[in-house]
């Protein structure tokens, strides 16, 4: 059947199972938007208020569903505004397809109106990108882009489409076959010899530790992980990105590791004799000083991306493969008869870990006057029974959320871990709410971060997305201030942000509900009132101005050199 490029864009997306788009129209994508208009019944478009919001919303949608999030932006500024969203998704390996308009092919390179070298600009912040030069390639390129985004180590893929391609016609041939790309073949299963060696290492370890990252969430491996733990009874720590892959209320979970990790997790890393990294990438915020990271341990590393292995820390046993597949392969061995009797007695190791736990590194005191930020998150956990989908921005509130919310399930924790993008939370929460219309979606943010994409409240209102925004308002860019307090002798250079909008009236201006809370005994009532409201809500919690995130490993220090409260 003959179709225009614009029709092919929509038809290919529909054939790929896409029914949700986040985007912002403009000159070069008008033909595509014309088709969006005509196809309203089968593809729903959400108009954000900024292209960055559109990409973050698609990202939030992807994190919650595991499906490819799709964003569409126009050329030039539309594409450059999308860059932060793409880079955010790239660092966290989130499957996205971003379609950008481009000036008509004959004008490319002429400095045309709203022209940018989008493929050049986004090359290093996407998993791959394409410039479509012939309408005959369009459907194939979109299918390949979607496939590349979701397979292997997922990531954002951008397809740049010149306007003249969207109006040119060609034959559209339906296909649901997996694209074959001879130069792109991600490894799924792990090498069985390596897995046997790994299973033996698990048996021999006296002080083992599982270090589980975002890869376990991305490959939906929680079930396999839990089954593995049924056989092993090992302590388990999560990275920021891995939270929720294993239930936080399980006694074997010892908290997050790294810069703001728990005392017990960081000391377990420093003292273990076997570290099993699963879908984690030894980020500098996790390792601290690399030379003293897990100094007594053999390291096993399971990852779908070979470049992550032995990049920062030399690994003794690499296993390349999809985490879900590899853990299933491990389970075959671990649950075979006789295997478990070969395991070491871990009682002394657990005794040691429990002693570290008694240090209660996350302890804080809630007085009767000033609201402590940690307390708000504890209360949120209580009121939501730990079952909310939580999006955050970046800074102190993000770390407190990670430390105190206690995630029980995967795909409920949306945070910009790698890039650390302020302004991520609200639009990501919108995407999550679109994906889970009946879910309780909460944004934990600060008065600094929320202002970076505050325009998206209008999007929430337009589509009646009942996102609940909790601002931990301390009038500072809190994490910057904390570093200045610790390392710059309290010279608070430009981190004081006590001049903010009146968030209650801001909420009202957008047609949302605004609530202010500055009393300790009003925290729970405010949360209850806000969370049960049917629409969008902003809750402005005035919290302790100079509370710090503890524990803290100073940048460049070893994990055993924590600053404790």
């Amino acid at each position: 059947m003959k179709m225009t490029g614009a029709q092919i864009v929509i038809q290919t997306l529909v054939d790929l199972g896409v029914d949700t788009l986040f985007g912002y129209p403009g000159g070069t994508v008008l033909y595509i938007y014309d088709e969006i208009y005509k196809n309203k019944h089968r593809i729903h478009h959400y108009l954000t208020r900024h292209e960055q919001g559109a990409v973050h919303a698609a990202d939030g949608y992807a994190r919650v569903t595991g499906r490819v999030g799709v964003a569409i932006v126009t050329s030039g500024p539309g594409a450059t505004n999308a860059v932060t969203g793409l880079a955010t998704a790239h660092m966290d390996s989130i499957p996205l397809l971003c379609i950008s308009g481009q000036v008509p092919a004959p004008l490319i390179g002429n400095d045309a109106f709203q022209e940018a070298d989008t493929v050049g600009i986004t090359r290093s912040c996407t998993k791959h990108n394409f410039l479509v030069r012939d309408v005959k390639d369009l459907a194939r390129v979109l299918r390949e882009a979607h496939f590349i985004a979701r397979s292997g180590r997922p990531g954002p893929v951008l397809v740049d489409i010149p306007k003249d391609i969207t109006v040119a016609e060609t034959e559209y041939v339906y296909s649901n076959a997996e694209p074959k790309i001879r130069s792109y073949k991600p490894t799924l299963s792990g090498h069985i010899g390596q897995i046997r060696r790994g299973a033996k290492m698990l048996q021999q370890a006296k002080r083992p530790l599982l270090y589980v990252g975002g890869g376990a969430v991305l490959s939906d491996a929680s079930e396999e992980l839990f089954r593995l733990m049924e056989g092993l009874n090992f302590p388990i720590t999560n990275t920021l990105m891995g939270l929720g892959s294993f239930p936080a209320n399980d006694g074997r979970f010892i908290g997050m590791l790294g810069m703001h990790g728990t005392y017990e997790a960081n000391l377990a890393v420093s003292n273990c004799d076997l570290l099993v990294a699963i879908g984690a990438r030894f980020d500098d915020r996790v390792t601290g000083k690399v030379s003293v990271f897990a100094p007594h341990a053999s390291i096993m590393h399971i990852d779908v991306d070979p470049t992550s292995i032995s990049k920062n820390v030399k690994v003794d046993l690499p296993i390349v493969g999809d985490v879900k597949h590899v853990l299933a392969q491990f389970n075959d061995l671990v649950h075979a008869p006789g295997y478990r009797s070969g395991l070491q007695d871990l009682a002394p190791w657990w005794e040691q870990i429990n002693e570290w736990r008694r240090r209660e590194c996350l302890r804080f005191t809630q007085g009767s006057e000033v609201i402590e930020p940690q307390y708000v998150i504890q209360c949120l956990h209580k009121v939501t029974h730990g079952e909310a989908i939580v999006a955050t921005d970046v800074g102190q509130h993000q770390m407190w959320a990670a430390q105190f919310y206690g995630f029980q399930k995967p795909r409920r924790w949306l945070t910009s871990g790698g890039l650390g993008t302020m302004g991520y939370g609200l639009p990501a929460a919108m995407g999550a709410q679109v994906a889970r219309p009946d879910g309780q979606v909460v944004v934990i943010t600060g008065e600094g971060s929320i202002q970076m994409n505050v325009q998206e409240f209008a999007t929430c209102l337009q589509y009646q997305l009942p996102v609940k925004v909790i601002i931990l308002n301390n009038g500072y860019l809190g994490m910057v201030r904390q570093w200045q307090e610790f390392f710059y002798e309290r010279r608070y250079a430009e981190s004081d942000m006590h001049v903010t909008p009146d968030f209650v009236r801001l909420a009202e201006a957008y047609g949302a509900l605004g609530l202010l809370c500055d009393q300790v005994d009003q925290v729970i009532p405010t949360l209850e009132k806000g969370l049960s409201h049917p629409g969008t809500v902003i809750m402005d919690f005035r919290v302790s101005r100079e509370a710090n995130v503890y524990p803290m490993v100073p940048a460049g220090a070893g994990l055993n050199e924590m600053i404790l409260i």
Partner: protein
Amino acid sequence: MRHVISVLVENEAGVLSRVVGLFSARGFNIETLTVAPVGDGETSRITLVTRGEDSIIEQILKQLNKLVPVIQVADLTEGEHVERELMLVKVATDRETRAEVLRIADIFRSRVVDATPTSFMIEVTGDSSKLDACLALLTPLGVTEMVRTGLVALSRGEKGMVSKSGH
């Protein structure tokens, strides 16, 4: 240590910038780089020379492999291989130096590819150290311009990089 890396890629727009961008973004260095279409023209072969510790080279090989249009990557320095480079050198001559330039060209089994009453252009092929040696002798005689291709190399023996497509 110096490594010669051969990269077989899809011959498509932008692929070279992906490879070069990878090196600059990750702080790897490139000493020389050559690229040209090979075989049916659907693929290109890049030869690049880089230096680094083993862990860096391992990252370079893996990162190259990760690029979507890269079909195959090989570190030729891991085995026996042949290296060649081509150099064109323009030497300004006068009556006294003309014969000397030709003698040097002869010693290095190179060819004169252009001659004027006041200059020669010489084409030299060989491994990089041979080119260096030749250039060292010609420089005092008055080299006005020169260009080198950078290294190309193939592994020794019958096995090719991608057996099925016949390269």
